[in-house]
């Protein structure tokens, strides 16, 4: 039997009062795959991410991670599972340096408890050094190691966005959730982001919510289209683009002559 997909979302339904934000949404994301989640504003993309991250509990349906159902799912457990997420905007720690931001992202690699921290044992110092090296390696990889001591607020938006990505990557996730990673980026930065995402997919699964269609169509292996909380299409970029239901969702019903 084939290995189960990394993430399987089955029939997830979320209602806010009378509004159904997600309506029996199902999809899978597998290793080595870039999955795009698109849809008009209010289609439920961010709600879907919030369910996967445990910020929002689904009223119905289930999440499976490596075949195991996630019960009592909550955000602080994600990193340990091997799932990290970048946020819309930045969500950086504004009063911590770039290096500290990324080191906090690397926290899942640390083992020593709080008691050792009180006594500042050599072990904790060594571990801290290891975290720092990990963080520096990722910063160097993204070409922002020269800014390690800057505060995020002092960086141009494109670089700050890269810091946020570095913080998610340093945890070495198996699944990376990118919430509008191209928002506010320049043409060139978006180009870089596209090739980086392709490169990342060699070692993990990437799910991305994005409004820039050219980016989505270029980097994604598969695209899930949401509209009013329902999955209206799921297929390769070419299939999705050719789907009349998708065109209708974005542009409204095409009047028939």
């Amino acid at each position, binding site marked *: 039997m084939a290995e189960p997909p990394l993430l399987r979302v089955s029939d997830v339904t979320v209602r806010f009062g009378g509004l159904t934000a997600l309506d029996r949404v199902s999809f899978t994301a597998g290793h080595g795959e870039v999955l795009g989640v698109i849809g008009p504003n209010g289609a439920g993309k961010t709600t879907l991410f919030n369910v996967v991250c445990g910020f929002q509990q689904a009223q119905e349906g289930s999440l499976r991670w490596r075949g195991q159902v996630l019960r009592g799912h909550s955000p*602080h457990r994600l990193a340990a599972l091997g799932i990290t997420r970048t946020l819309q905007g930045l969500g950086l720690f504004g009063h911590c340096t770039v290096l500290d931001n990324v080191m*906090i992202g690397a*926290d899942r690699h640390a083992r020593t408890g709080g008691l050792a921290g009180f006594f500042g044992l050599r072990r*904790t110092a060594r571990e*801290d050094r290891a975290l720092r090296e990990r963080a520096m390696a990722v910063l160097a990889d993204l070409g922002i190691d020269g*800014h390690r001591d800057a505060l995020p607020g002092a960086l141009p938006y494109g670089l700050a966005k890269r810091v946020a990505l570095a913080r998610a990557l340093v945890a070495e996730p198996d699944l990376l959730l990118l919430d509008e990673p191209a928002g506010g980026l320049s043409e060139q930065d978006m180009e870089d982001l596209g090739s980086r995402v392709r490169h990342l997919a060699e070692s993990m699964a990437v799910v991305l919510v994005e409004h820039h269609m050219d980016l989505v169509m270029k980097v994604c292996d598969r695209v899930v289209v949401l509209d009013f909380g329902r999955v209206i299409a799921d297929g390769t970029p070419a299939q999705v683009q050719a789907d009349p239901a998708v065109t209708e969702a974005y542009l409204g019903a095409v009047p028939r002559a």
Partner: protein
Amino acid sequence: MAADTVIAPAPPAPVTSRAGLSPLARHLLLAVLALAAIVLLSMVVDPFTNVRLATVGYYLLAVAGLTVLTGLTGQVSLGHGAFMFVGAYTVALLVVYVPALPFWVDLLLAAVASGLAGALTGAAAARLTGPYLAGATLALAVGLPSVTQRFPDFLGGSNGLGFTVNSMPAGLAGTVPSTRWQAWVVWAVVLAALVLLANLTRGRVGRRLRAVRDDEVSAALAGIHVGRMKVFAFLVSAVCAGLAGGLQAFLLGTAAPGSFTPALSLSLLAAMVLGGVGSLWGALWGALALVFLQAGSEELTHALALGTDVSNNLPLAIYGLVLIGVVLAFPQGIHGIGRTLRTRLRPRRTPARTSADDEGEA
């Protein structure tokens, strides 16, 4: 950030830790040096100044605890006087009712009791933010000391409990004045606690606390249990305040509700802001200001022979004015003055790096 550095980032500085010392060894060394300085100082000043020296010590610990809470996790407490109250009364009750216990056990139990109180408060506080949290902790500062009125026989009512602690080793009796000995004990405890705090805030836990302060959602996504971190900060902070209270009781030989008014809680918060939020050094400047500004202005009013209405309120007014002045001129407090001067005087080698180094001193 200059445009050219964006295009051509500076070569990364080598990743090294300072010296070969573990954080513990480095902080211990500093603490031993500080204790030696205190001992020397206590030999040359009069007994009255020794009491003040000890007072600076326990305020330093209380303000440092507040720094961990407010400076690192961004939770505001207007009720730290209540934790000092818990610590002071624990020591007082133990000395009075269980005189067989050595003083260090009393202090340890005071730390445990205030830690419990802090954890309970923190568990409630983790659900509150901003003004609501401040309000809840203020209620604690207002309410808790009046417990003494409810149990006047046990807790001594508004007069509190008076006692003497015989902590001095027999060998020193007669050769060392008691206030000098008290200053030594207070500072030894304070410095030991500060070593632990410095280890904690410099390392990974400090980083996690700061993450919670800056962005709770991102902190959770990095694998940090935000609620647990907040309770932990409250616990650590309350233990510091409780120890400070216990030391105060030891120093004064009394624990009375009048020492733990809401005004005390507010002074602690003001001292933290004055010294510099988020830095343990700031706590030192804050504690010094708390004791010596008060003392200095009291002496000033005395010298001016003003009416009691004026002389009673002038010290507080002076303290307030200094606070306003420092915050306006140096938003990062007294500790920020040094930092600002250093970055201005130092040649602009790698400006970003120096600021981070200073951050590390915290």
